[in-house]
């Protein structure tokens, strides 16, 4: 099985540790991983801003980069959801279609494809899990509080395998953090207020780390935490699942 | 082209390909005692519920609860000693303005939400259950059905000029979500579950 590793542009640029952890984690689980060097962006920033019609070139590029793999895995629910919902290609329609069916967000790849039931990881800290909306409501990584349906949480399932980790409860289990792509600057006031409220929920429950399957939410919350001069850190879930702290 | 024709033509042009009407599935209802469920829900939304064996018993309770009531009206002849029981439908509804207590009958009740179904034929006039300060409704415990679907099954295609489901006293929470009973309609609702003799 060969997995094409898709690293979202802003993770590549700002959060290489999340990407490295994803790669190492997959390798440790015996997966052959290739990172196509010519990748850039999935096109989501344009599409969510109403410019989906400008994403043809990044779509074609995405297809060229990833069509050959058995699976494509990315440490971002949001980017994966975008590809699943919106990747189209006039040049390679069949390949684009195939990619939409074989792209996975990291968590669901671990739980659903690799069926991971134990991890060699240790992270002895109090951790708050932020349910990023696109992963949760879009990819159904966890049950949503709005629905009357069986409870489950793929990220919690994995975090429970991490030695020493204490998962904190939140008052609002799955409220949006307010990042929202260009929303974070176009609607700055509401975006920041949402972020502050989300962060406060984690702080109130004494989280030492806030984690999520999407770095974008964490980048937003980190910006707020650091402005508040808080010691609480954000960390991508891949880094925790790959952690070997003593 | 009249507005009617214009709207209908525009709708007909733009409506999607016809999709069949779904069957209403059989929804699950609690196995628990219907009267008990009805009572719990009714009390939860501010109604008072009494199980009584006779209208006389209901009368005693009401007279105790609503001592101050000056004008009482009812559709039950059994209340004729304390209430006006023969109001003709042609009466001006505005004359109901000073009714303190109305004692009326309901066709059926719904356990899931404690709503009681009343139609015009059970009312002295339409405004009665709304304009009175306090309302009492009498229903048979055998007429308590589990869900709204069962209620509409029972109602079927029956004709009426006006019908209403009443669940609890009139209420509002429009000021800071603080619940206040007695918005424009009755301040209290008393429900009598009258065992049939």
């Amino acid at each position, binding site marked *: 099985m060969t997995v094409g590793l898709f690293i979202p542009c802003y993770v590549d640029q700002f959060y290489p540790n999340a990407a490295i952890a994803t790669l190492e984690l997959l390798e440790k689980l015996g997966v052959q991983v290739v990172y196509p060097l010519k990748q*850039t962006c999935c096109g989501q920033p344009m599409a969510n*801003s109403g410019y989906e019609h400008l994403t043809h070139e990044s779509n074609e590029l995405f297809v060229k980069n990833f069509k050959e793999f058995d699976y494509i895995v990315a440490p971002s629910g949001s980017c994966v959801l975008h590809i699943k919902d919106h990747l189209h290609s006039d040049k390679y329609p069949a390949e684009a279609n195939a990619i939409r069916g074989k792209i996975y967000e990291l968590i669901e790849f671990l739980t659903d494809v690799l069926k991971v039931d134990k991890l060699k990881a240790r992270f002895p800290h109090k951790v708050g899990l932020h349910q990023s909306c696109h992963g949760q409501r879009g990819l159904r990584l966890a049950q949503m509080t709005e629905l009357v349906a069986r409870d489950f949480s793929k990220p919690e399932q994995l975090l429970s395998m991490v030695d020493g980790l204490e998962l904190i409860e939140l008052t609002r289990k799955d409220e949006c953090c307010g990042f929202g792509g260009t929303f974070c600057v176009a609607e*700055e006031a509401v975006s920041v*207020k949402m972020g502050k409220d989300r962060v406060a929920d984690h702080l109130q429950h004494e989280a030492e780390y806030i984690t999520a399957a999407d770095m974008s939410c964490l980048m937003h919350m980190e910006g707020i935490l650091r402005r508040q001069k808080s010691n609480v850190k954000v960390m991508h879930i891949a880094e925790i699942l790959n952690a070997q702290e003593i | 082209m009249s507005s009617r024709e214009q709207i209908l033509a525009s709708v007909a042009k733009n409506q999607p390909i016809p999709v069949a009407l779904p069957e209403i599935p059989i929804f699950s209802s609690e196995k628990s005692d219907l009267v008990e469920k009805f009572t719990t829900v009714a009390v939860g939304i501010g109604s008072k519920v009494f199980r009584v064996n006779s209208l006389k018993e209901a009368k005693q309770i009401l007279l105790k609860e609503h001592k101050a009531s000056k004008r009482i009206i009812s559709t039950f002849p059994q209340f004729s000693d304390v209430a006006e029981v023969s109001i003709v439908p042609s009466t001006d509804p505005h004359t109901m303005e000073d009714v303190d207590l109305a004692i009326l009958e309901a066709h059926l009740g719904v356990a899931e939400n404690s709503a009681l179904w009343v139609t015009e034929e059970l009312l002295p006039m339409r405004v009665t259950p709304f304009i009175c300060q306090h309302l009492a409704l009498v229903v048979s415990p055998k007429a308590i059905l589990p869900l*709204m679907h069962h209620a509409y099954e029972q109602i079927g*295609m029956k004709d009426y000029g006006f019908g209403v489901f009443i669940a609890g006293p009139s209420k509002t929470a429009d000021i800071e979500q603080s619940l206040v009973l007695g*918005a424009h*309609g009755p301040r209290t609702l008393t429900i009598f579950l009258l065992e049939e003799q």
Partner: protein
Amino acid sequence: MSELKDHAALAENFNADELRVNWHDETLWFIRQKRDRSAHAIPDWELLRETASQIKHNVLSNLSEYLEQFEANAKANGVIVHWAVDAREHNQIVHGILKKHGVKEMVKSKSMLTEECHLNDYLAENGIEVIDSDLGERIVQLAKEPPSHIVLPSIHKKKEEVGELFHKHLGTAPGVSDPQVLTETARQHLREKFLTRRAALTGVNFAIAETGEFVVCTNEGNADMGAHLADVHIASMGIEKLIPQRKHLGVFLRLLARSATGQPITTYSSHFKKPRKGHEMHLVLVDNGRSIHLGREDFRNSLKCIRCGACMNTCPVYRRSGGHSYHNAVAGPIGAILAPNFDMKKAADLPFASTLCGSCSNVCPVKIDIHNQLYKWRQVIVQEGYADSKKTLGMKAMTQTFASPATFRLAGKAGRWFMRNVPLAVSNKLNPWYKQREMPVPPKESFGEWYRKNRK
């Protein structure tokens, strides 16, 4: 409220008072929680939603037939049926009925449609006074404001502010803010109106094609107090409010109040079928853009809406920006997908007032894919040329960089490309990201650079 300000600017004003935002957010979240408890008490809630959604799909796909069926049955019941192509015609019809009866004062129960049509203003210009009888609507009417929520019109008002309004207009003692006392004051004030007004207008929650009756749901009893005391009852409804059969009310009435406020049902679900003897009952069927909306394949599902307001209560943006920031009769997520149909230019900002978190679609009792429609409206608004030209230029630049791996790579020693090209990037006051958030710290190398060193 300035027409020129968009949602972001109005929301920023709203956020100037953070404690108030907290209060607004908590109040609405409380309702969302009540909705959750209520929904979770119904084991087949999701099946109920699905059934409602399918019934509404059937309605939309046979709407012209149902409208004719409804009209025929309503007429047979003695109801006078009118058709209004747009808001203006609706207002004229209502005015005509009132004029015919020499009515100068009318009570009105909640009707978002009349808000949409600006009926009160129209009638006021024609010398007719309208008293809104729903407590929340009366409060905003006294404050000379539009409702900020379709179910809870004065949810943005604190009780002290209501107290001040009542002191000024209804003569309560200064400083009174107890909701119990204020509600009692409104009860007495409005009772006098109910008893003296000869015409009453109500909205319509559901109209039944099979029987020609219509259902109005209230908790206060104001629709009934108005309609049963007045000589003339006028009911205004959008053409999408139809449902096929009476038994379908079983589905919708189970969903409506639970979704709206968490109540198992509203206090009153009044079924109006025939006028009182010797009195008139009018029904105005209003299109006002709905039939055009029906033709928009991607957006027609929004006509399934039963106006419960659940999407507003759950929306993290609505809760923190307030209903007035949507500058539209219907606020929140549902308002943001309905408004562009009526006026795309004026509503161009609304589909962007969302993070696309998707919570709205999950609470919607008729399963409207609200967040997907928000996404789709964004595409339409940009394509139709209603986007800011600066934004378009920025997006084009971004697209070019992403389309070329070489440019992307060149762009970055880690972080540098972002710092230059993404609008959130510069650490100064002009950068909206930096205003209240720190910038991410650029690492010493990007993942791409690390990978080349460590894996290839």
